[in-house]
């Protein structure tokens, strides 16, 4: 398992270079690349939140897109009743996602292994169908965002540069929060539950409340990414919470390397890059993405970060 104590120098360098590049790109005045940076930052936040579950708690959730979608729909639906301020939309998204996370987590965490994977998938599918059932909001097709989310002082997330910097700041905060969580007493209990549940029980700790708390935190964090995503594509549709999105998020986590904080960020950056390059080369890029995913699992056992940090490949 990867080291957690302190951030290794090379992690700092990778993060620093990525962040610097991300900060410069929006200044170039090219909306296409600015949006690419936003997309990477948004997926990085989502992947980071999923890694809290997959990497640190060992809980393979295949339904994380539900919380992403909740964020997307909050950013899309609230402006319809005249609320477009970020300080209401973001807390609302967090509250909705946390609530659904509490409900679905309370049930799914009772199960483990295969059951947990299937149940989280089913709960996300339920959310997908709820969104699809909203016929007055386009049903399966979804709807255009009536108005982008407004920050204070006339800044709007509809502006690509504002969005990019906002999501980058959010990402940095998310990384900080994730590291604080995983390094805390709470985080250690969660990790211990992953590594040896029996021992944890033997010292008198039940993993359930810890896991549920982490599940709610991860859900809420993902919803924030969803709000950003709605503003990026200026659209809200059930597709944002389809099982493919859940799979892609898992792909980002494992592409980078789970339980490293930096891994999922790297995974998200490479995934979005891959998606962009492949889709410009061929209409059938999903086919190649699928193949790459299979090859990643079969051949590259420690992820990209493992490759960079020189840990041996088996």
């Amino acid at each position, binding site marked *: 398992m990867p080291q957690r104590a302190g951030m290794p120098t090379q992690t700092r360098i990778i993060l620093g270079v990525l962040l610097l590049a991300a900060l410069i790109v929006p200044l170039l005045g090219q909306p296409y690349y600015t949006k690419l940076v936003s997309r990477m930052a948004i997926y990085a936040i989502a992947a980071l939140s999923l890694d809290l579950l*997959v990497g640190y708690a060992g809980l393979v959730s295949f339904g994380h897109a539900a919380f992403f979608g909740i964020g997307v729909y909050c950013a899309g639906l609230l402006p319809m009743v005249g609320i477009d301020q970020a300080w209401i939309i973001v807390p609302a998204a967090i509250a909705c996602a946390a609530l659904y996370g509490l409900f679905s987590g309370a049930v799914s965490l009772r199960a483990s292994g295969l059951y947990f994977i299937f149940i989280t998938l089913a709960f996300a599918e339920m959310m997908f169908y709820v969104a*699809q059932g909203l*016929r007055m909001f386009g049903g399966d097709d979804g709807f255009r965002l009536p108005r982008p989310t407004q920050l204070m002082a006339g800044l709007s997330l509809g502006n690509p540069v504002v969005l990019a910097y906002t999501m980058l700041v959010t990402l940095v905060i998310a990384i900080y929060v994730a590291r604080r969580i995983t390094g805390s007493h709470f985080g250690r209990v969660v990790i211990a539950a992953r590594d040896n549940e029996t021992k944890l029980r033997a010292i008198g700790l039940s993993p359930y409340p810890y896991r549920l708390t982490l599940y709610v935190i991860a859900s809420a964090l993902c919803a924030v990414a969803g709000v950003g995503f709605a503003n990026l594509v200026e659209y809200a549709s059930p597709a944002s919470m389809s099982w493919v999105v859940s799979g892609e998020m898992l792909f980002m986590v494992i592409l980078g390397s789970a339980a490293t904080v930096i891994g999922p960020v790297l995974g998200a950056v490479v995934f979005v890059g891959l998606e962009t390059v492949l889709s410009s080369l061929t209409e059938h890029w999903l086919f190649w993405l699928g193949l790459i995913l299979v090859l990643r699992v079969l051949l590259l056992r420690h992820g990209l970060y493992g490759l960079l940090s020189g840990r041996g490949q088996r």
Partner: protein
Amino acid sequence: MSAALVLEQAFNGLQLGMILFLMAVGVTLAFGVMSLINLAHGSMLMLGAYFIAAAGTHITAYPLAFVAALLLTALCAVALEWLVMRPLYQRGHLDQVLATFGVSIAINEAVVMLWGREAVFVAPPEWLDGAVAITETVSYPLYRLAITAVAALAGLALWLLLAHSRLGMRIRAGAENGDIVGALGVNVRLLFCGVFVISSLLAALGGVMLGPLIAVQSGMGDPLLILALAVVVIGGVGSLKGALVASLAVGVIDTFGRMIWPQLLGDLLGNIVANGAVYLLMALVIAIRPTGLYGQHGN
């Protein structure tokens, strides 16, 4: 709501339940024997449907096309098992989930490359055209009845195979302890390959038969797979009985729910409840029995 409608919906529910049963049994079999979580299972159903469409354009005799479609799927399953699944048996859940998810999106796109994005037409066999009079006022399409019957027969055949044949004994032994079975001189690799093919064929059978009824297009198997996963969770992993009970329950609840809830709760709320009912049932079962109705182990 007339009695005739209730009867018709009951038959529809039974049919959905049987198709789900075919899917769920494949999932449960692959996990029970090889500890494999296979999210590409929905793609096998889709391949079955595309292959019957392709076979139908070349072969006029339906039974021949039917067999050809299943054979083609079996070939794909053998290749898939050899290339991707075999190295996965020893891996953790996360690796299996991701690799089979990758396979699924690759196959979903491959059919678009071969057949395009438009839905493909599949003709039902002519001799199954027409309807059967069930009561004096109710008639039901013969083809749909045939689907239910064939699915039930397939389930019965599988049960006979598993419970009363030498191969079935080996498969059950392999599920208990693959290493020991291997040490006793059984070719476990071949056995596992066989189980994967059987599991894929059950899904493909569903696809072949659903072809004329639902739109044959990329990703058509995935909603059914996810429903089947809910069935597996409700019934309990590794249990045939659980899969049967849960599939029929889910089939009936889903079919009737779509009719009843919108009438009770209005269009919007009714649709939402109807779509979510199966998952709420699953949540309820898991809250009471975390390993499903008949399941024993979850890891």
